[in-house]
């Protein structure tokens, strides 16, 4: 088993943290995982991507080439990374993103990730955790509890219940 994930959006959306949490959840389950990122010189606002590879064998090359799952939370990120996908890929995009109907992938999930964070939970900064709920549903190898444990390990003290809610809301967004 080897799963390649690319989490993309704009800098400051917490996607690198989301990538770290996924990788951590995987290794806590005894799997192998690596996480890397590329970023521009800006601290905030630029295009950002975090990549995670999860597998049950040693992972050599650390970069994602054909993502099994692409998460895109900004139009710019979607437009930039859509080309690397193939017919087996899954796309998760925020509902605000214009997608092209001709894209040939396995599945596109257009979900109100940003809105759920900002309106339903009332904190736009937890969009990354909402997205983690969605992704957990799409990665059968990852247990829900281990992702939640990894979230609670990494988020600031005092925000545990807020982030747990965000995670649960993300899970609710997608019914398989």
């Amino acid at each position: 088993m080897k799963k390649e994930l690319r989490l993309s959006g704009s800098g400051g959306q917490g996607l690198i943290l989301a990538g770290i949490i996924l990788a951590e959840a995987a290794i806590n389950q005894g799997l192998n995982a690596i996480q890397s990122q590329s970023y521009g010189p800006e601290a905030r606002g630029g295009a950002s991507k975090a990549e995670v590879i999860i597998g049950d064998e040693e992972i050599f090359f650390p970069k994602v080439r054909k993502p099994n799952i692409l998460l895109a939370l900004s139009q710019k990120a979607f437009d930039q990374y859509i080309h690397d996908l193939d017919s087996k890929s899954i796309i998760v995009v925020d509902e605000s993103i214009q997608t092209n109907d001709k894209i040939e992938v396995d599945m596109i999930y257009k979900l109100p990730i940003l809105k759920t964070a900002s309106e339903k939970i009332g904190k736009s900064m937890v969009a990354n955790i909402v997205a983690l709920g969605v992704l957990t549903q799409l990665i059968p190898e990852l247990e829900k509890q281990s992702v939640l444990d990894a979230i609670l390990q990494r988020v600031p003290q005092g925000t545990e219940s807020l982030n747990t809610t965000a995670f649960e809301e993300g899970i609710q967004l997608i019914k398989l």
Partner: protein
Amino acid sequence: MKKNIKLLQGNEACVHGAIYAGMNFFAGYPITPSTEIAEVSSELLPKNKGKFIQMEDEIAGMATTIGAAVAGAKAMTATSGPGFSLKQENIGYACITEIPCVIVNVQRHGPSTGLPTSPGQGDYMQAKWGTHGDHPVIALSPTTVREVFELTVKAFNFSEKYRTPVILLMDEVVGHLREKIEIPEAGELEIVPRKLPKVAPSEYKAYEFTEDLVPPMANFGTGYRYNITGLVHDETGFPTNSTKEAAKLLDRLMAKINNNLDDILIYEEGFAQEAETLFIAFGGIVRSVKEAVATLREQGYNVGYFAPKTVWPFPEQRMQEISKNKKNIFVAEMNLGQMIEPVKLAVEDKNIVKGVNKANGEIISPEEIIESFMEVVKCPVK
């Protein structure tokens, strides 16, 4: 016992390894992509009763590291390309004065400011020849996060054992990669302490010609009042203009490393002896090479790899041994051809040595390595 398994970034693992090795002092200056090493040190050192200081510039970061080592600390600094250039004069000082310390260079693209957030391996030659004058260099280059930890420990050990600055030549690929690592238990890895003088202060010669060519080092403040200078010095540590003493000193500095290559040279290989074609890489690119070799072998090609972890001194003899039956040798590096030079020196038929080079801020992919191989063997992928 529960295994201590963590997801750690290469840069973080470097600090954990350093503290495991006994680091109790860090001085540096922020620079991408090495900054996490300073950040994590600033937090972990005082927690472990060690000291962290952010200096006013890269040059000071190196100088303060050496000063702390003189006062008895196990000291480290970390930087990236431009900062590594600035540190060079004082690295030379640590070489000639034989002060143990560790310098981490998380290589990025260059020259000059280059692509600050992107990987490169353009400092390979600089690690050896960056400072003026002749001197030995030990430089280690890790590929995985676990190796970052282990080679940081080795870097401290070599620096103490051979009284020399040791360079941990990382690259951004490994520095920023988060990977699963099982942190070694206390006592699992060997830690080499400083060789202190056993004689009385009146008998102590700071740069004595001992049998192993590594003079015991007295820490300042312990009763041995001696002189340290970057000038050529005799066994007492005082400056001399004697050409004989100058030659004697430089010969000893070189010999103390060259006499111990069995201990110092670390490398990894896969099918290196029997393969027809050999891939060579260091640092982050070894990951691409290993995947390329696995893919090609699945397709029936007789290929192997050789990955020096000790990149200076270059493992010349081993390179020579495994190059004898080769049809092709590819050296893959994120620069325009640096490690290929010592490889060529070691290989009899220079024509079989080819570079797979990329210096655009991107890691070389396994596919690109396979493509270079296919171009040469002129055989389509099965």
